[in-house]
């Protein structure tokens, strides 16, 4: 995982350098650019890409049409706590424990943030 993130950052920095954002810009501007590149690379798209697969069981955006529980409209705090409880086994599950164990604390936070807000954009 660390390898992935570090390499991604490398890729981000290389790409921003190639885009000509780095070299001639002033030191201050450069660090802002870099920060933006890091944010764009790591924060935003990761929450989305980590979350998309959940919909296969829970329905698009977490809005279930079947017997698997819906979590559409739940808050980030609720979702983060639920995923951590599944992961630790303090909350019983048939399958969620096996999924939740695939995500770090940070990833759970990103997922909770994504689903905890995606429904607000649909309004």
């Amino acid at each position: 995982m660390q390898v992935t993130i570090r390499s991604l950052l490398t890729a981000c920095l290389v790409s921003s350098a190639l885009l000509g954002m780095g070299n001639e810009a002033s030191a201050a501007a450069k660090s802002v650019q870099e920060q933006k590149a890091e944010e764009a690379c790591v924060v935003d798209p990761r929450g989305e890409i980590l979350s998309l697969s959940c919909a296969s069981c829970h329905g698009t955006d977490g809005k279930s049409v079947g017997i698997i529980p819906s979590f559409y409209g739940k808050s980030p705090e609720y979702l983060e706590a639920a995923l951590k409880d599944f992961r630790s086994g303090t909350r019983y599950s048939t399958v969620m424990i096996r999924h939740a164990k695939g995500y770090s604390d940070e990833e759970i936070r990103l997922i909770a943030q994504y689903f905890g807000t995606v429904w607000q954009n649909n309004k």
Partner: protein
Amino acid sequence: MSQNISRRDFNKLLVSGVAGSALGLFGMARPAFAAQNRIVVIGGGFGGASAAKYLKKLDPSMSVTLVEPKAIFYTCPFSNWVLGGMKTMEDIGQTYTILKNKYGVNVIADTATGIDTVKSTVTLKSGKVLNYDRLIVSPGIDFKWNAIEGYSESVSNSSMPHAYQAGPQTVRLQKQLLAMKDGGTVLMCPPGNPFRCPPGPYERASLIAHYLKEKKPKSKIIILDAKDKFSKQGLFKKGWERLYPGMIEWRSGATGGKITGVNASSMSVMTEFGTEKGDVINIIPPQQAGKIAFDAGLTDASGWCPINPITFESIIQPGIHVIGDAAIAGAMPKSGFAASSQGKVVAASIIRLCQGKVPAPPSLVNTCYSLLGPGYGVSVAGVYKLTSAGIVEIPGSGGLTPMDADDDHLNEEAMFARGWYNNIVQDIWG
């Protein structure tokens, strides 16, 4: 990407693969920031329809064309339930109306017959030519028709169906089961790895047994397997003993399961140990990537398509992304869930690439539910990440329904299997 790569190579891969194609360094002919973001998707199954829907859902400004000849797509998932008499063909038919009308996907009912990688065009059977900035190919599987002596497409369409692409094949196998006499023998012959849906043949044996137990209890099922072990084996064998004692016999490749040929007129199959006769014979032949992948030069010597695991872009043909069963996706099995997960990752990645941004590292998931009886479900789950060893399962995650799961748990999983189906088809086609 199945072989290990060093960390330095991995870094290079990320830099050249992601940053490279983001910047258009891959084919110089390909503009980095495509003026129109025209995406063409070949195949409206689990992978292709997921990619098409999520491209439009995540960025409605994308121009997305989906090419699929079938007006109704019958899902392989739950086709075994049809054989068991628990679902109808109507229940498992999906259409493209909502993708077209609600999401604005341009759905073309046609077959892609050629891909021109220099001109970036796809030619259709009707003669129509489509231009693309990026192409997604999700054609599923084809069968290796010459692998089993005496077995051919025409034999599969008459006496010995494969029922491994759902539709008329499923109906044919079901009719044969309905027509079989009580006390008959069903022969099932699954292939070696890799193949579509590793637990599929064993779920099928279970649900055929469910049907036979109710209607034709003197009958039996013999599985002549090319393999020496199979997916969820312990869970299946335990379930078979509990639900269908004495009804299902499984022979491994090493103990005479491997078949060498079939004889359609005498309804028999040849193994290394002799000949077996069956009243119903279900041959599941060895497989390879769908034909268009071969025609477009996307396959390697294995018969499947090697891809850059970040964006699923072909490592042979830049600008073409291959997903689903046709792709070599590291530790991921060939499943509908996996194909859909890949379709979404590709959609998100392509949107980033079209915006001139670097895609996020992929996060991929699979779960295969299998039903052994109406109230008896088991599953295998996997969460996958990209590491320097390619797409691998995250240690400690995923895995099987516990061997000691109690009846309540098995019943819940059977219900969640139905819930999964309802949601995944809604998420893809609804």
